[in-house]
Structures are given as structure tokens and as C-alpha cells.
């Protein structure tokens, strides 16, 4: 009879220990809100994984200056980010492409307005194995031949791409069909977003693509420039001829001066207009576009190509004026210039 009673006391002890642990945790969490700056509040960012490293760096640097502002960044993908944006769940949406008309309609239907801000360039790099000694340059037409839907199960050998290429099977690696990178590559090379052959090895993780291409002599694939510059010992970037006879290497410089076409693209953040009225959001965006932060975009830790200082100044002005809506009424365009933001 005594044992069960002792038991029940033990059970109570467990519950008490659990509760105490919770209180302790809550106490630990509470002492983190010391503020030296005048700004306070939460900023919620979500969206593209491509833009994530830039926004994360901005959030990290910004919270060093304003410890009262808590910026969190999620990775739901460009499309998933816009859904949360339209639901009013986020203040800022990261996007690796301009907003689509359907997404803009959903946001308008929810009664929100937004400010569109391009923040950097990203280059897509076509890569081959370092042991590949036959590809010095590829034209857009050759890439199209390789990746268009009609190539499925018919274009399977390097010697079908160009006379003189060896008799080796094409091992294709590419990002998954849900990624903005896949969208842009198909748009720029094949001519229509999402239009691609289906018989390639797909991965949402670019590191898997690096491993794949580095493991096969006859492999070819594509992914973001920042992953290429980190892995130049494992894969080789292929210069691209956009059709005018000159081969352009994929580098930060060629993406920045606009000569690496058609595989460089602007990436964006979208700010909800009513959120921008909050002082902490306003300060965050101004910091994001300031000369203090923008050079960090091309630092190796972030790995993207910054825009020109004049453009950032114009964008800051546009943001200060709260200019509404998108300058891409038909969605993404290939090889488009950002000069439209200068007016």
C-alpha cells in the first residue's frame, strides 16, 4: 500500500520539475531585450532562399546597431513568401524574381500595397566537371538544345550538341522545379518559364548539384553564382555566348557590368506599405540600401553582386517616396535593365 503512494509523489515531482524547467527557460528568455537605440519592434521577413543570405546579413548588421529591433528571416521560397505577404503575416518578402501578376492581384485583393526594391544581381552559372576539356564556351542555342523539352530522351550525348564534342553521355544536373533559379534559367534559355526536359537529376540543394557535377566527367549543370565561387576547385564555370560571338566568363564583374547575359538577373525585396510606416521597418530598409551595408552584398560571406551606388540612391528615394507597385507588369524579363528605377 505504501509503494503506490510513494509513486504518486514521484509523479508529482516530475511534473514539478517540468514546470520549474519551463519557468527557468521563460526567465532566461526574458532578459534579452535591453535597448540602447531608440528603435524597438519586430520585423518579419520571409521568402526566397536565394535572397536569404543578403537579408540575413542586413538583419545581423542592423540588430548590432539597434538591439531593440528583432528581425527574423524565413525561407519559404519566392512564391510561398508572397502567399504569406498577401496574408499579412510578413512585413518584407524576399523574391528571386519580380512579382507575378497573379501574386500582385492577390496582394491587392487583400487590401495591401507594396514597394518593390531590387537589391542585387545574381548570376546563374553553367558548370562542368574540371576534367571536361572539350567545352570552352557554350552558346544559348546549344544550351537550349540541351535543356528544351524536346531534348528529353533524344539529346543524350555530348556529340549531339556540337560536332567535335566527344561521344560521352550527357549527365544533367539542375535545381528542382519549385526553385526560382529553375524558373529563370528555363525562361532565359528555353524561352518559357518551367519549360524544360524532365530527365535530369534535380535537387533543391545546390551543394548536391556541386557534388553531382564534380563526380562525373561528362556532367553539366547550373546553379547560382555564389555556389560556383565557393566551389571553383570542384567544378568549372562555362563562359556563355549570348549570340553575338563573344564568350563571357561567369564572374562578379561580368554580372555587375551587365555583360554576362542572359543568365544574370536582379533579385528583390518587397515591403508592405503599411509596415514601412513603422519606424523600425523604415530604418531597416534605409539601412539595407545605404552605402554602409551594400558593399557587404559582394563580400564572400554573402556572395552576390551589388548594384551601382546611383541605383541604390534612387531606390532609397523611391522608398522614401513610398512609390507603389511593380515595374514588371508582365513578370520576369530576360536581360532586363534596372534603369527603369532611375526615373
Amino acid at each position, binding site marked *: 500500500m505504501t*509503494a*503506490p*503512494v510513494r*509513486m*504518486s509523489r514521484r*509523479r508529482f515531482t*516530475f511534473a514539478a520539475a*517540468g514546470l520549474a*524547467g*519551463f519557468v527557468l*527557460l*521563460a526567465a*532566461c*528568455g*526574458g532578459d*534579452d*531585450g535591453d535597448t540602447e537605440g531608440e528603435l524597438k519592434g*519586430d520585423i*518579419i521577413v*520571409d521568402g526566397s*532562399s536565394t535572397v*536569404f*543570405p543578403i*537579408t*540575413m*546579413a542586413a*538583419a*545581423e548588421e542592423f*540588430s548590432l546597431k539597434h538591439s531593440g529591433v*528583432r*528581425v*527574423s*528571416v*524565413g*525561407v*519559404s521560397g519566392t512564391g510561398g513568401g508572397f502567399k*504569406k505577404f498577401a*496574408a499579412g*503575416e510578413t512585413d518584407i518578402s524576399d523574391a528571386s524574381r519580380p512579382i507575378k501578376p497573379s501574386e500582385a492581384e492577390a496582394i491587392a485583393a487583400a487590401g495591401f500595397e507594396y514597394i518593390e526594391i531590387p537589391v542585387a544581381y545574381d548570376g546563374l552559372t553553367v558548370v562542368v566537371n574540371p576534367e571536361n576539356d572539350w567545352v570552352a564556351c557554350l552558346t544559348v542555342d546549344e544550351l537550349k538544345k540541351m535543356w528544351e523539352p524536346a531534348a528529353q530522351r533524344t539529346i543524350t550525348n555530348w556529340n549531339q550538341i556540337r560536332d567535335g564534342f566527344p561521344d560521352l553521355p550527357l549527365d544533367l544536373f539542375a535545381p528542382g522545379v519549385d526553385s526560382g533559379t529553375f524558373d529563370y534559367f528555363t525562361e532565359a534559355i528555353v524561352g518559357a518559364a518551367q519549360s524544360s526536359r524532365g530527365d535530369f537529376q534535380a535537387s*533543391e*540543394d*545546390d*551543394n548536391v548539384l556541386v557534388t553531382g557535377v564534380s563526380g562525373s566527367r561528362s556532367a553539366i549543370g547550373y546553379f*547560382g553564382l*555564389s*555556389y560556383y*565561387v*565557393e*566551389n571553383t576547385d570542384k567544378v568549372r564555370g562555362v563562359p556563355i555566348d549570348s549570340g553575338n560571338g563573344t564568350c563571357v566568363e561567369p564572374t562578379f564583374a561580368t554580372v555587375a557590368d551587365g555583360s554576362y547575359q542572359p543568365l544574370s538577373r536582379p533579385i528583390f525585396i518587397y515591403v508592405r506599405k503599411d509596415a514601412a510606416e513603422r519606424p523600425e521597418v523604415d530604418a531597416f530598409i534605409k539601412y539595407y540600401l545605404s552605402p554602409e551595408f551594400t558593399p557587404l552584398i559582394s563580400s*564572400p*560571406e*554573402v*556572395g552576390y553582386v551589388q548594384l551601382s551606388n546611383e541605383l541604390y540612391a534612387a531606390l532609397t528615394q523611391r522608398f522614401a517616396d513610398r512609390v507603389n507597385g511593380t515595374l514588371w507588369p508582365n513578370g520576369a524579363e530576360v536581360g532586363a535593365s534596372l534603369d527603369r528605377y532611375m526615373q
Partner: protein
Amino acid sequence: MAEDSSALDRGAPVFKASMQWRRLKSHFFVVLGLLSVLLGIVTLLVLLADVIIQSTGWLDWQFFTSFDSRFPERAGIKAALFGTLYMMVFTMLMAVPLGVMTAIYLEEYAGDNWFTQFIQVNIANLAGVPSIVYGLLGLQVFVRWMEMGRSVLAGSCTMALLILPIIIVASREAIRAVPPSMREASFAVGASKWETVRHHVLPYALPGMLTGAILAAARAIGETAPLITIGALTFVPFLPEHPLDRFTVLPIQIFNWVSRAQSEFHDLAAAGIIVLLVVLIALNSVAIYLRQRLRTRY
């Protein structure tokens, strides 16, 4: 008797020949069994060794006291570790009482009718539902309808639903293992149904229930898909201050580091994996300890 031995005699040469073959089969089975054991263990050891080698130099104090950063040497796991702990506390506070009470009702009170059977079949089925489905449910019910937002609480509610079937099934097994003679003895001295459950069934079944609950917790800690669905974040440079605050958890932090371009982050991910493994092993050890310790008392 005589007939039997003569049958043996007649069969002797045949039997001898097959004996060798049977021994061979027996050995073959041992080798096969050993190989399958080794396959599992060697794979695990290789993975572990790989992770440990990769994480060397990264698992320092700073790793536990820092938030994520774009500089690998400054990045740490604080937000994810605390997020996981917070979430698990709330999850267990919800799931364990609910699960245990459900199990007691089903085992001790519910009559054997179509309704009870319907519930039982459903609980067994729920235990096999893919976790992403719970994430979608949590997103709609907790995040959107109940307006909890992408909070620790929404994550805990989702996780509680996810592990509830496991806790119920384990608790029912534990209650079923209580000998009927204990209940009968209790009734015989005039105890009510509640007193019997409270003083005899529950204490006896407790070790089994605790083991089930802790193993369920271990499962919840490793889950990523439902939390990504309900919107646990990736970069959270602060600790959750209240149950409705934003958060991240260990598996999401690890996943994010693995997918970064800079290879130093892959080493950080390995360090994160070790932290996750240690938490899991600790939990499982507690489960084993409790089972051993409490069980010997009866």
C-alpha cells in the same frame, strides 16, 4: 517403441546426410544475421565518424552562446537549441496528460462498442500518418484559424498532435500489462473505480507510459517537415520571449547550414547534428533508466 527405433535405423543414413545440410543452413543464418547487424552498425559508425571529424573545432562554448551569423566562426546554435527546448516543454505539457487520460479512458472505462472500436482504429491509423500532414493541419487550424501565428505555441500544438497517438498506444499497452488480479484485489477491499485506477493501475503502468512519452518526445525533436510547414523561421537572432513568439529549432538550423554555399557552414551543421544526437541519446537514456528503476519496484 521397437517400431520407432527401427524407423530411426532405416532413416539413419538419410538423416545423417541432411544433418550436414541443416547445420550449413543454420550457420548460413547466423552469418546472414551477423551481416545485417554489421551493415546497420557500420553504416551508423561511418556516419558518426564523418560527422564527428567534420565538426572538430566547431563545438565550443561560443557555439552554444551565439545566434546564427553569416560568419561561420561567429555562428551558434543558441536560438535553435532554446527553441527546441521551449517547444518540447509545451508539447509534453499538452500531449502527455491528454494521451494518458485518453489511454485510461479507453482501457478502464470505455465499453466495447462500435464507437470505441472506431476511435481505436483511428488512433492506430493516426500513428502512421506522414508528419507533413500534421504540419498542414497545424498551419490551417493553429496558425490561421486560432491566430497563434508562427509561434512556439502553434509549433507545440502541432507536435503534440503528432505524438499523441504514439503516447496513447504506449500508455494503453502499459495499462493492459497491469494484472487484472491487482484491480480485483483493490475492488475486493472496497476501493472505487477511480481509487483503483489512481492507486494501483496508474503507478504500475507509469514506467511504460513514461518510456512511451520520452520516445515520442525524441521523435518530435527530430521532426522538421511539420515545423517548416507551419512556418518556423530560419534566421532568428533572439530567444522566444513568450509562447506566441517566433522561433526556430535544431533540425531547421542544421538544414539551413547544410544548404549554404560556404563549406564552413557544413562543418557547423555537423556540430549541430552532434548537439541534436546528444539531446536524443540523453532522452533515450532517461527512458531506459526510468523503465529499469521504476519497474523493479513491483
